[in-house]
């Protein structure tokens, strides 16, 4: 109690305008019933939440805040064998080789006509720049594409209103991949460049391809949003460090009164691309695809991208001045208003798409920045929200004419009216909110029943767990005039952006319950015990194994020798929902397999000593699960123990 009170005091001293004072006072008596989903009942919304430095994406139900799944995306997951099984290792391949970890910041659901369509969720890797596509029929990572010429993919994976493109803008500008990178770091201004990838998405298969890259001046790209409806065809990127500092950015990148929002006319870029104005540039990047029928990923290294230089091709990009290191750059449901959130600014500027178009037509420019026209601030400005709070970060919309902006420094969500720019309501967050989510809050048609705040600081919100605490999110009911906090729920990693969609949209999208065994095209599948076998190919031994409640076939294998590499290709013969089998073997230097019904997965195992090795099923599958086990005999190299395998027949010799 003492400690809790102390940390609240400490926090309010740190953030003078933060008013948490009495945390329980913010909760109305009907909050519990609003967040309550009875046992056996489903939530109203799916919430796809970035897992931050866990590298994964987590899925929650709303309004209960119950965790439904963690989808492995950019980090290995030994629980599911992701990145450990032979089939999934290629998913994490890059031009740098196998990268087992990353930092997943933002999620973006695929759209049709500016509305969420329930097909895919995209995610960005902030460290080794990549973009991932998760298939919502399987809740598996279906594809990962690396981004060349990039230093950190932060300004991503925001998409256009038909998911024509998902963008990937570099956070850290760096010398281009085909340039000599062995240059002094303080030659940033001469040698460092920004690159923004426009990644096209095949509307049927979802397959991603880097359609083109824009080469920009060296700055930091932070967040982005596509135009919608009337502004479809444009994209807006917040940029900071227009000072082009290369050290102590905390001070040196906060010098200017205004940074920029970069407006991109991507339809114009497409025209230039068609007219052959792009330059083919030599690069190296991995493109990894998971084949659902073969249950196997492949990784291809690609060697070329097409780059459009926006300083040469004048009318693609325009800079709009935006106060102080903008983070959020959000477009309202009508497509007319672009909200910049300068994280060090005392106002929220709202820009008008119509005014921007007129300013460009009238050439109402304030000179150029590195060859790009800078639009006059007032010429693009619709108005400013005065004294909204401290440290605005990100804005979502309710489709009823209101915007909701998160304030990191003053720890609050502020609701304001877009037309008259008046603040309507404030709700405290515990503590220091980063991103916000309203289901569909970035689309043409928000489904604005709830707002979720993803907080950066947890402190005393839950039972303490030593120095490291869980992450904290909060749900607000925003169906009325006033925001009402109804629930705290803990999250994994450090969540950045998240999106949410009505449950029915995902539930009824044709989700798979099993993989049909007849459609299994894995080259080493055993579709039935009569196909189970062990085959030696030199020092490689391939075990074609089946699993069904509750035994493996074969479950006795002899004749493995030191120096052998053993590959267990385990096919789960079950054809019923929710009957995975696991597979683990003693001493394996990797992980377990978790095999879904009808799926085949492969675990590589190199025995390190002579002896008997047990193997077993790790996922409780039936009353006889504990009986689901087997043995492997490993003999010295050069031993003459023949290779044999069986299930049920290897009995003691009769006397």
């Amino acid at each position, binding site marked *: 109690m003492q400690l809790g009170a102390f940390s609240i005091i400490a926090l309010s001293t740190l953030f003078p305008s933060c008013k948490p004072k009495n945390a329980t006072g913010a909760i109305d008596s009907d909050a519990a019933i609003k967040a309550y989903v009875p046992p056996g009942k489903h939530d109203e919304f799916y919430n796809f939440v970035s897992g931050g430095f866990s590298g994964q994406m987590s899925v929650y139900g709303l309004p209960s805040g119950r965790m439904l799944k963690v989808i492995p995306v950019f980090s290995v997951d030994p629980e599911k064998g992701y990145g450990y099984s032979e089939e999934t290792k290629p998913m994490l391949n890059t031009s740098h080789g196998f990268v087992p970890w990353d930092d997943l910041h933002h999620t973006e659901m695929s759209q049709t006509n500016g509305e969420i369509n329930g097909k895919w969720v995209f995610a960005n890797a902030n460290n080794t720049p990549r973009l991932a596509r998760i298939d919502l029929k399987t809740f598996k990572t279906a594809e990962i594409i690396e981004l060349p010429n990039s230093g950190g993919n932060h300004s991503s994976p925001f998409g256009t209103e038909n998911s024509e493109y998902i963008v990937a803008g570099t956070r850290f500008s760096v010398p281009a991949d085909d340039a000599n990178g062995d240059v002094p770091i303080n030659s940033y201004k001469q040698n460092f460049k920004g690159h923004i990838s426009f990644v096209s998405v095949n509307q049927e298969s979802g397959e991603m391809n880097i359609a083109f890259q824009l080469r920009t001046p060296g700055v930091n790209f932070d967040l982005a949003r596509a135009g919608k409806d009337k502004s479809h065809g444009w994209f807006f990127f917040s940029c900071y460090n227009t000072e082009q500092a290369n050290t102590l950015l905390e001070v040196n990148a906060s010098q200017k009164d205004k940074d920029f929002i970069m407006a991109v006319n991507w339809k114009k870029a497409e025209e230039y691309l068609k007219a052959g104005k792009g330059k083919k540039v030599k690069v190296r990047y991995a493109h990894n695809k998971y084949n659902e029928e073969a249950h196997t990923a492949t990784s291809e290294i690609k060697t070329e991208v097409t780059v459009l230089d926006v300083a040469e091709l004048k009318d693609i990009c325009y800079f709009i001045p935006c106060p102080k290191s903008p983070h959020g750059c959000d477009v309202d449901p009508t497509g007319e208003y672009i909200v910049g959130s300068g994280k060090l600014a005392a106002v929220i500027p709202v820009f008008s798409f119509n005014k921007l178009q007129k300013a460009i037509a009238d050439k109402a420019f304030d000179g150029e920045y590195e060859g790009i026209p800078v639009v006059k601030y007032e010429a693009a400005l619709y108005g400013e929200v005065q004294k909204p709070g401290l440290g605005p970060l990100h804005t979502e919309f309710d489709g009823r004419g209101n915007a909701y902006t998160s304030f990191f420094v003053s720890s609050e969500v502020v609701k304001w009216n877009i037309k008259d720019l008046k603040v309507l309501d404030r709700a405290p967050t515990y503590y220091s909110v980063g991103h916000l989510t309203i289901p569909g809050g970035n689309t043409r048609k928000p489904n604005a029943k709830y707002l979720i705040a993803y907080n950066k600081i947890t402190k005393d919100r839950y039972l303490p767990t030593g120095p490291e605490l869980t992450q904290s999110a909060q749900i607000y009911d925003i169906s009325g005039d006033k925001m009402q906090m109804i629930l705290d729920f803990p999250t994994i990693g450090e969540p950045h952006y998240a999106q949410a969609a009505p449950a029915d949209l995902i539930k009824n999208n044709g989700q798979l319950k099993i993989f049909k065994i007849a459609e299994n095209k894995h080259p080493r599948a055993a*579709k*039935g015990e009569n196909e189970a076998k062990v085959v030696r190919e030199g020092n490689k031994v391939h075990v074609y194994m089946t699993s*069904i409640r509750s035994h493996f076939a074969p479950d006795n294998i002899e004749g493995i020798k030191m120096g052998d590499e053993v590959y267990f290709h385990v096919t789960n013969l079950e*054809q*019923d929902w929710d009957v995975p089998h696991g597979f683990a073997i003693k001493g394996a230097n990797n992980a377990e397999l978790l095999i879904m019904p009808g799926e085949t997965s492969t675990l590589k195992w190199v025995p390190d000593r002579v002896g008997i090795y047990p193997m077993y099923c790790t996922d409780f599958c039936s009353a*006889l699960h504990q009986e689901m086990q087997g043995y492997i005999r490993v003999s010295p190299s050069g031993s003459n123990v023949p290779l044999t395998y069986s299930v049920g027949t290897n009995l003691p010799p009769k006397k």
Partner: protein
Amino acid sequence: MKKISLMLLVISGSVWMYSCGGSSDQSSSTAEAPKSMVPDSETYDPNRGEGKFNETNVQLGELDATMAKRGEATSNTKCLSCHKLTDERLVGPGWKGVTERRTPYWLMNFITNPDPMIDKDPEVQAQLEICLVRMPNQNLTDEDARSIVEFMRKNDSSK
């Protein structure tokens, strides 16, 4: 007072839930959890089983060798990990003689709709006490089920 009425609301809500329980679209395939150990003997016909098949829509003719071959292939993938073709029990009972013990439509109902029948059929419940593994739903099509019965007939006609 307010708290009490809230509690009541929650309780009455859950009573309402229960009374219409089982209408959820997933309930049919959640396998392991036994719903009721008391067979519903009033409506259940142990000769026919429960499902879409009956004496009018399943009729046997001469043994169809092609269909039996197809049934054998499907059985290899989906059944024979747990059932032997002899009368010996593996995970489940051996198949020898099964077409003499059961009507073809009972067999087809059971292999396409196992969960409700495991809950209701007295003989299957007795079998479960021996085997302890509920026969999984292997998502067989009607055609798969019919051809498996043909393969069982072929198995029973050979000595």
